[in-house]
């Protein structure tokens, strides 16, 4: 067994360098070492997307990455955001404000059991980030959501309220939608 040193920024906090078995999955690292259990194991083979986390690229753009099938090395030196890192907290660590996507999911009663929620929150957050740079035509909003979230598995609410919530945010946030082509 070989160990590698890993350093990254998780939810704005510097983590490491810490020595880990190189085959440690990012999901296990978050859960077992950082005690961040908001990122969920669903299938463990990259299909259900419950384990998606946000990785910030060099240019500041966001990408949704599956933490179950990627080992820690892929995240070395990266900025990672998990579902725990999206809301605003005060000095006491209490939540004071939620992100627009989080609010929309609440408002729409998007989830029931909540296990897939972290993945949906993160993927939708990444989608908004993309649309800020590349706005979508008004008549393509639903298709765009279908593509961005279409692989995520939800077992309780049949996707309807997640997708509706995302559409609501996209359509009500200035700059994400352009006129239909």
């Amino acid at each position: 067994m070989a160990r590698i040193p890993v350093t990254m920024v998780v939810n704005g906090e510097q983590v490491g360098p810490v020595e880990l078995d190189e085959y440690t999955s990012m999901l296990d690292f978050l859960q077992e070492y950082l005690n961040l259990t908001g990122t969920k194991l669903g299938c463990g083979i990259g299909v259900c997307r419950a384990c998606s986390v946000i990785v910030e690229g060099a240019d500041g753009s966001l990408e949704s990455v599956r933490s179950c099938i990627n080992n820690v090395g892929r995240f070395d030196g990266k900025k990672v955001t998990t579902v725990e890192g999206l809301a605003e907290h005060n000095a006491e660590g209490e939540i004071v404000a939620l992100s627009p996507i989080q609010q929309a999911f609440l408002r729409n009663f998007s989830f029931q059991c909540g296990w897939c929620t972290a993945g949906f929150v993160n993927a939708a957050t990444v989608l908004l980030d993309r649309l800020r740079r590349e706005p979508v035509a008004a008549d393509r909003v639903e298709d765009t959501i279908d593509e961005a979230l279409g692989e995520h598995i939800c077992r309780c609410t049949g996707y309807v309220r997640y997708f509706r919530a995302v559409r609501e945010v996209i359509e009500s946030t200035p700059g994400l939608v352009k006129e239909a082509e």
Partner: protein
Amino acid sequence: MHRIIVALAALLLGQTVAAQTSYEKGRYLAAAADCVACHTAVNGRPFIGGRPFHTPFGTLYSTNITPDEKTGIGNYTLADFRASMHRGKGVHGNLYPAMPYTSYYLVSEEDIEALYDYFMQLPPVEYTAPRNQLMFPANLRFGLTFWNWIFFDREPLAQPQGKSPEWQRGNYLVNALGHCGECHTPRNFAQAMRRDRHFAGNLLEGWDAVDIRPRALLRQGWDREHLRQLFTTGASDRGTAFGEMFRVVEHSLSHLSGDDINAIITYLLDGSDETSRVEGQPELAAERYAQGRADFVAYCAGCHGREGRGIVLDFAPPMDGNAGIRGQSPYNTIAVILRGLPAQRMDRNNARAGMQGFHRELDDARVAALVNFMRTAWGGSKDEVKVQEVAEIRHQLQEHGYLEAAQ
């Protein structure tokens, strides 16, 4: 000579086939000839045509081969049908050689008749495929006469002495019905198969339709059992079928009888089961390609397992021993890393998740190092993949729009 082969082939079809009706036999042969793969539009009904083929000369569409009189082959006589299969002569002129008459000319008369019977009994569907969009002069069908004259030599199926009946049956299935050469044989400037390089591999739609000559297959680690698995399920510990080959397994190979699969394998391996020994050197590979190894662990091992040994084949194949890694050409390994693979479902029991493409995240140097690490560690390769090779493949794939394809 021709007649002997026909007789022999008929013999080899054996009793199971003898008991079939002509229609059933034709249906089986149509599967063996994989007619459905080309004559079905994406998401369309079988045999009505409309699938586009992008050739260097423009886009061709497959035609309706249901017996609809207006739009299909309803007016074909047996002779018309034979002419199209054997000589590429359609009722309305020459067929483009995207129709593999360059292989089907080897199909026996008896099989032609069975196929004809079968096609004439299909439910007729009225459907006209889109018009071909070809550039001059390829858009002129009479030019095909010259093409045929120059490039279409109707050499009969070789039938070497001393080969078993099983081998001969395999020869027929592979070269005539299966028309494997159409993908696996390199083509010349006029898109004709190069006889001298039969089965030596060919680039197609951004993949390498690999070298399937016996020595190459054995080098890649394909023995009887692994090939049987691949042909019947689309997956084996040597790797999985993807791209067009997945469709071949889905529509054709997985429907063939055990005997025919055995015959194909006997022919392909030329009776040998002695895969070449691979001297994998993981330590050397790790030392020489440290970044490649680190990237394998970080990006690949989650699915392909510790030390490339896989997790469970029903999910993803191991890389240790993978045919692509062991093969002469690194093309597919590089292309898969860059492009990723789509999710594939063979049937309700057998399906695999897609693979992400890494063309955005891994640059040419890292891809080269990753490929070199795997080929050295598990493929026993002595040749090093150069960064430039990756760059070229990336460029080609980019050009043809294969890197942005949805995964």
